[in-house]
Structures are given as structure tokens and as C-alpha cells.
């Protein structure tokens, strides 16, 4: 897989904050990338630099192997910000056409694409409705369409599911998978860890302007695993005393065990086999991204403090 976006040593300091302080990462073509972090971690600033809204103080952004040029490269980027909205008085169709043309599509192209997406999302009947007449979920769908209809190579979605019901969430989710399959890279920024776990193949966690975690979802989980296993026996009454593990939680025949250091899962299994207890199930419990997130961010103040920047 080739790299679509490469960020190196990106820095952006504001008067009272180091919003982004030396962040580097790479994004593969066709991957779904989770950009995570607590509120005020610098995610939005980072995204605004990638979309050309802010210029970085230092560092470089490479898009498709070339230095990022905001003026010409916006056609390759689709951005759905967290603070998003539409012109309320405009008609839905005109609004979509307008945003498509601003991305650089010709009128005919724009019409073609808008029609295609409206049909796909069953929105064709909305064309002459005013944006203010749409429900929040409908507006969200329209917003998503306007983000992707110019077929950008990189789509950046900031909290794309907020305000969507499960049906429409799934619709958008499926579309995200579809886009990734076609080779579009997606940056997905959210606080909702279960969504990240479900959708993303790669994550970066930022906190206080720094990158504190970078890797594939499974890789990260392996990295933070705590050797906790779920073990189920066919009968209860087994001896649970063994130096290789201790029981964290017991629910009848079901045990949650943590394997002690210098031991492995086979030691545990042998202990029960030797007692002639039948093992019905045995599997590792990997930490959820939520746990990892809380673990890593815990201890830092929940609200970011203002600091003086000497730069």
C-alpha cells in the first residue's frame, strides 16, 4: 500500500497554547484512520492544518508524495468539520451544487455527482426543499454527501455520527467502508471509542498537542494487554490456588483470571487439566480502546490548562 498522507514534525503554537507540538504520522491509501484524543488535545488544529485552513508553524505535510499545496489540493480533500452547517435559506440541491463547484467541479460534473449521491441516499425529493426544512439527521446526510461528492482522495470526518439515528449511522458507516474499498483514505476523529474499534484499522492518540500512541487497532490492543483471560469450566468446585494466576472475578463456572508474571496461559490450562476439569472456553480478554484511552489520558488534567509559549 502506498502512503497518501505523511505528516512530519508538525507544530502550531498559539499565543496561549502549544496546540500541536511535533506530531508525525503516516496514512496508507485506502485505510481508515482514527484520530483520537480528549477535548482540546489539538485534533481540530491538526485537521485544520491538513485541510489547509491553518498554516503549520513548522513541519511538513506531504499529500500523495508531494508537498501539500492548499490552493490546488483542496479538490483531493473532503472535510466534514465538527462545527458544521449549511446555508439555511438555500435549496438543498443548490447547496450541494454550490459546494461541489467551489471544490472545482464544473457545473455539469457537479450536477451529475449530486444526482448520483441523492439517488443513492434516497434524497432526490429534497432537491427543492430549503435546508432549514430538513431535520438534523437529514442535514447530516446532506453534509456527508457534500463532503464526498467530489471524490476526494482523503476524507476527514470529525464526529460524523453525532446526531444520527442507528439506521442513518449504518448508512454512513457502510459508505465509509465503500469509500475505503475504492481506495479513499479516511481520517476519522471522534471520542466514541466503540466506533473507532469497529471502523478503524489504524489509530493515533493525541493528548496535549503530542502524539502518545500510534498503531494498528490490534497492535495497540496487544501492546496494552494485561494477560487477562476468560475461562469457563463444565463444573464448578475446582481449586483456584496456583502461582501462575489469580482470579479477578468469578461467576459460577466462569472465571476471569489474570496470569501472573513469568507464567503463561499453558500453565493455567495445565492446572485445570491436572484437576481433570473440562475446559469449555478459554480466550484472552484484550483491553478496549476505551480502557486504553482512559489509562493513557488519566492523570493529565481533564481540562487543558493555558500555558505560556515561548516560540
Amino acid at each position, binding site marked *: 500500500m502506498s502512503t497518501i498522507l505523511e505528516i512530519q514534525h508538525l507544530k502550531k503554537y498559539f499565543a496561549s497554547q502549544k496546540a500541536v507540538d511535533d506530531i508525525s504520522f503516516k496514512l496508507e491509501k485506502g485505510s481508515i484512520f482514527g484520530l483520537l484524543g480528549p477535548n482540546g488535545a489539538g485534533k481540530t488544529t491538526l485537521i485544520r492544518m491538513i485541510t489547509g*485552513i491553518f498554516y503549520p508553524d513548522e513541519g511538513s505535510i506531504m499529500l500523495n508524495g508531494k508537498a501539500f499545496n492548499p490552493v490546488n489540493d483542496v479538490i483531493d480533500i473532503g472535510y466534514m468539520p465538527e462545527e458544521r452547517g449549511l446555508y*439555511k435559506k438555500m435549496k438543498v440541491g443548490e447547496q450541494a451544487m454550490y459546494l461541489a463547484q467551489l471544490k472545482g467541479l464544473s457545473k455539469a460534473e457537479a450536477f451529475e455527482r449530486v444526482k448520483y449521491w441523492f439517488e443513492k441516499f434516497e434524497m432526490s425529493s429534497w432537491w427543492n426543499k430549503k435546508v432549514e426544512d430538513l431535520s438534523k439527521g437529514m442535514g447530516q446526510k446532506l453534509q456527508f454527501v457534500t463532503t464526498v461528492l467530489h471524490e476526494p482522495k482523503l476524507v476527514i470526518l470529525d464526529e460524523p455520527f453525532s446526531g444520527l439515528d442507528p439506521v442513518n449511522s449504518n448508512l454512513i458507516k457502510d459508505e465509509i467502508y465503500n469509500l475505503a474499498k475504492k481506495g479513499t483514505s479516511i481520517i476519522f476523529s471522534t471520542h466514541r471509542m466503540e466506533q473507532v474499534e469497529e471502523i478503524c484499522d489504524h489509530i493515533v492518540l493525541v493528548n496535549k498537542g503530542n502524539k502518545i500512541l500510534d498503531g494498528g487497532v490490534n497492535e495497540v490492543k496487544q501492546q496494552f494487554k494485561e494477560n487477562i483471560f476468560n475461562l469457563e469450566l463444565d463444573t464448578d468446585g475446582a481449586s483456584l490456588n496456583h502461582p501462575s494466576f489469580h482470579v479477578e472475578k468469578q461467576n459460577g463456572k466462569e472465571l476471569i483470571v489474570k496470569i501472573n508474571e513469568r507464567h503463561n496461559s499453558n500453565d493455567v490450562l495445565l492446572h485445570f487439566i491436572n484437576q481433570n476439569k473440562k475446559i469449555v472456553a478459554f480466550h484472552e480478554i484484550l483491553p478496549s480502546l476505551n480502557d486504553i484511552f482512559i489509562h493513557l489520558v488519566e492523570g493529565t488534567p481533564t481540562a487543558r490548562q493555558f500555558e505560556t509559549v515561548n516560540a
Partner: protein
Amino acid sequence: MNKVWIIIRREYLTRVRNKTFLLSTFLFPLIMILFVFGSAYLGAKSIQQYKIAVKDETNLYKNNFKTGNAAFFGYPDQVTTSNYKEKGYEGLLIIYSADQQKADSVRLYSDKELGLATDEAIKNQMQKINEERLLMEKGVSRAILDSIHAKSANEDLLNYRSYKISGSELKEDNKALAYGIGFGSGIIIYITLFVYGASVMRGVMEEKTNRIAEVMVSSVKPFQLMLGKIIGIAAVGLTQLLLWIILITVLSSVIPVLLSPDVLQQAQQANQSMPNMAQNNTMALKVLEVKGIMATANWPLIIGCFLFYFLGGYLFYAALFAAVGSVVNEDPQEAQSLMLPITMPIILGFIMMTSSIQNPSGPLAFWGSIIPFTSPIVMMSRIPSGVPDSVPYWQLGLSMLLLIAGFLFTTWLSGKIYRTGILMYGKKASWKEMIKWVFRKS
């Protein structure tokens, strides 16, 4: 550039298609015309004739008062301040003495407000009577006086024209026309600066509160977005102006036909009886008069300059209004307080115009028409009185250059504030912060 064009088109079309645009475009000239002619009509109708009893102790004025439309004069016997009402009069005029050095010479008594027009009418009458009396004392006979009056009332006796000498050429100059055009174009620029400036500001605030700003600036540069909006609304303004000119021309040629000559004559008389009180009447009459002498004005120059100063002034202030719109949040109160420093110079310009129109070559007029903050309004009040006589070419050139430089500067300045302000949510920017944004490197 192509993107700016797309934005201009949207800003223009959404506004022109709006019902409010159509309504204000067609109602404004109608209201203007109705106001001018309506107030002339009302002014003429509202002068009430009061019955004044005259008690003349000098016997110099008796029977010499001429009844006009503001006062009817009668000379009942034995009239006093206590019985004038019983005799059917609304006021009592007692002339104690014709000697003006002596106190208590002429007094008007009434139990109600008789109005300025009545006062003026009495004073005018007494002046005339005095004048005639003094002339007759010097041996001028009644017959001669009457024939003089008849002759001087004939307007043909006075064929007054004022000319302006420019080089070897003599040009007819018409101060009333210059005044009218200057005042009119000054007011139109003053109003449009506010209307379209506020329109730009509201547009920017809408983008910010609707949260579309960030979506937009991921496709276009903030500066392009601001420029597109400013130019789009300028086009709306020009369209509206053009429609107004057409409508006013059509309406003002139709309305006088509808108004009876009788009413106009009454308006004219009302003017004579109280010259200080009848500006609206004068304006209406001037509109009529001016139609005949329109040809004396240098229209291509005036229209050219008007368009230049309309656009220049608009561009100068629109950028500032856009900057204000970008730094405020939903709260209109915030906008009010930030708008004050922008609206002050506009109002100042209007005040300067009212005095510079009286003296288009004075120092106030000069400075007001050179400094770009006030030049769009003040210069337009000077131009109709003559280029290059009242306004030398170098002044016009300097004023235009400074206005261009001025709007380039305000656009640059506002672009800097706008770029940061449009993406700031939640708090109002302070002046200090805004200044910081201006000087920050991009």
C-alpha cells in the same frame, strides 16, 4: 478567481431573488416620492386661516392689512382682550405705537397657538404697510405705488442668471440644482453605506452562526469568501440603484400630472408666507423646477463620480463591516458595540456634507472630501457645483486615489481579522486580540 466568481454569483442571486429585495426596491422610490409630494401637499393644506381682530391706536395700519391664506383681518369697534372672542375673532392684534423705540408697540393676543405662519403673515404685512407709508410720506402717490407693485410682481422684469467663468468660457450655473444633486447623492451614499454594510455584516454573521464557515474555508480561502460576499452585495446594490433611478424618473414624471396645479400653487403661496418653515415644499417645487433645467448639469461626470464614490465608499466600509461580523457571535448586542467605531465616521461624513454643501470650496469641504472615511459622502456634495471650478482636478484625483488606497487597506486589514474571527466560536474578540491578528504572520 473562478471560486470568487462562484461565491459572487451565489451572494447576488440569493439576495436578488429574495422577496425583501423586490419589496424594498419598489417601495423605496414610491415612499420617497410620496414623502416629498405628500408633505408638500400636507404643508399646503395644513395652513389654517385665523381671524385676527385689529385694534389700531395709531390709525396708520387700519384697513391696510391684506387677508391671506394664513390670516383674515377685521377691524371691529370697541374690541378689547376680553371681548374679541365674542365678536367672532381668534386673535387680537393691538398696535399701540408705530414708533419702534417705544415699548409695547405691537402685540398679538390669543388664547391658543396661532402658528408660525400667522406670525409671519402679520409681520410681512406690517413691513409692507410701513414701507408704503414711509414712501407716501416722502410724496409718492398711491397710484405710483400700485403701478410699481404691479410691475415688480411681473417676473419678466427680473431675468436673473448666474454664470461661472471658466477660462474664456461662460457657463450657466444653477446653485439650486447643484444643491439638489449634491444633497441627494450624498444622502443616497450615506444610506447605502449603512444598508449594504449591514447586509455584509449580517451575511458574515450568518455564515458563522450557521457553522458553515469552516466547511467553506476548507474549499476556499477566507479572503476569497469575504471578497466574494462584498462584491456580490455590491452588485446587488448597483442593481437596486439602477432600478431606483429608473423608477424615480418614471414616477416623478407621472406624479406632478396627478397632483392638481391648484395644490402646487397653494404650496408656493405657503412658501412665501413662511419661507423658513417650508423646506419640504421647497424640495417638491424644486423637483418640478429642476426638471426644466436638468440639462445644465454635467451629467456624465456626476453619474460617473457617483458610481465611483458609491462603490469606493461601499468597498471601504463593507470590509470593515465584514470584519465586525466575523468577530461577533450570535449576540446582536456585541455587533452593536463593535459597529460604533465604523458608523461614527459615516455619520460624521453626513454632518460634514450638510455644511460643505453650503460652501463647497471651504476648508471643511476640502478635508472632508479628501479623507477616505468621509470622502464618498462629502465629495459627492461638492461635485455638482462644478469640476474643475469648485473642485479642482487635483483634489478630485487625490480624493479618488486615497479612497482606492483606503479600501485596499481596509480590505487587507479586515481580511486578517476575518480569517481568524470566522473560525472562533464562543467568545467575542477584544480589540487587543484583533490588533494582534492583524500583525500576525500568516
